[in-house]
């Protein structure tokens, strides 16, 4: 590993905030994408179930 200890890895002589911040934002964006997809999927499935039940007794 390039860094001797985890503390140094976090500190990264001063640049740690920016580096970890960027990686954090990156993972946050991925998480947001997956969360949006799951939300939309549930919405669509619920809508389709309603449409089907409406057709059955329609």
């Amino acid at each position, binding site marked *: 590993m*390039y860094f001797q200890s985890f503390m140094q890895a976090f500190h990264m002589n001063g640049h740690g905030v920016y580096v970890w911040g960027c990686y954090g934002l990156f993972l946050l964006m991925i998480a947001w994408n997956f969360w949006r997809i799951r939300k939309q999927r549930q919405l669509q499935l619920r809508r389709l179930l309603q449409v089907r039940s409406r057709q059955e007794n329609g």
Partner: protein
Amino acid sequence: MAHFKLPRWFHQLGSPKWFYQFAGLLQPWLALISLVLLFWGIMWGLLYAPADYQQGNSFRIIYVHVPTAILSQSIFMMLAVAGAIGLIWKIKMAFIVARACVPIGASMTVIALLTGAIWGKPTWGTFWQWDARLTSTLVLLFLYLGILALYQAISDRQIAARATAILSLVGLVNLPVIKYSVDWWHTIHQPATFTLTQKPNMPAEMYLPLIVMVSGIYALFVLLLLLRTRNEILAQEGRSGWLTKLLQEGHA
């Protein structure tokens, strides 16, 4: 419009039913591949790769900034080409894929911009520097937001798909012109200072994690694209028979 014969698999790709199931099979493998590649790339880039002699550790942001910047441009190209295919050969799936690309591309561009700005702080001392690459990424974000706004503005999906296809095509045609003019403008106003990324002259151990991250993020993109396309198919193909049958089996 061009009406020459297309290969059979191209038409097969065009049927929502076939695409829905094919995507369903592919997703777990893609998830695995992208997870492994991204984890490997992040660990390598973050902890094991050497720091840059000039910039120190802030150089590690390149492993997030460059892949997202590359992806944001290739996604824009992909959705414009998908729109063109939809317009010329009238394939519904092409419009659905184009619509699924837009939010992913927009979020990639946002991350590319943010990481570029954050990277600017330790390098130039200010968050926003009118650097040629950052400015053209900003313009690309405007193009994405224009497409998203047009999707919201038109309620009818058929018209929205065609209108945004035209918009993205004109945008794609303009993209190189905009990039050239921004670079030209940058050299006029600021002599070539340190630009964000000079990829080629990096030593191997700095360059390899970048390759891993780029391939990992492309795998992730395809995964997100398949997931979003399936959602779009659910939204648009609500009425068709095969979907209701799939729902009955409870395995949608």
